[in-house]
């Protein structure tokens, strides 16, 4: 597609429920990033993939968060046993190359845990 696509756009989960958020990066983009954006805050880094390799997961807040990109294209961010503090917008971004550059962000998935 023309841009980074994320689904679902909105997700309401009951506390304790598992959720899976999907990201379709721009075709051919090597690097893929996940960010978490709380209300009124800037995005915060979660994890980074180069093709299928997860090179940095230092931003994942707990072991309840897990991300994968098994074939080097589509990525899934999974959150187990969701808690209220997980409520945020989860942004996916991709870039063509390996070096830091301006990301192309998706519109995000707004997760609300009730």
């Amino acid at each position, binding site marked *: 597609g023309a841009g980074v696509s994320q689904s679902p756009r909105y997700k309401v989960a009951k506390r304790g429920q598992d959720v899976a958020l999907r990201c379709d990066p721009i075709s051919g983009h090597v690097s893929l990033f996940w960010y978490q954006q709380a209300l009124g805050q*800037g*995005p915060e*880094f979660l994890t980074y993939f180069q093709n299928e390799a997860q*090179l940095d997961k230092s931003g994942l807040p707990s072991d309840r968060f897990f991300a994968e990109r098994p074939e080097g294209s589509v990525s899934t961010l999974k959150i187990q046993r969701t808690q209220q503090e997980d409520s945020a917008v989860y942004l996916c971004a991709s870039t063509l190359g390996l070096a830091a550059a301006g990301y192309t962000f998706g519109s995000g998935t707004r997760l609300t845990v009730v």
Partner: protein
Amino acid sequence: GESVGLHLPTLSVQEGDNSIINCAYSNSASDYFIWYKQESGKGPQFIIDIRSNMDKRQGQRVTVLLNKTVKHLSLQIAATQPGDSAVYFCAENIRANTGNQFYFGTGTSLTVIP
């Protein structure tokens, strides 16, 4: 300017005036900076970038200034238009890091008054 906390700095300007948005970045080792624009319900959109070996860079209607001595970044928007209303984030990066993650500021909300 930028501030830490839940209250987003705001800036209101008249249509046609110039806007200046400021950002104080945190890491003296950061050597690459990007300004992003985020409209409601959308992901951040790349505006302009600058590397640390430069102190000024111009784009279409936008100029970024970098002062490494005081770790300050600014975005100037000429002839501000209603479509410029959004939240603006500065983001910093250390290119030598393999993670390629960006650190975002809290953001400044720009409102253009017609």
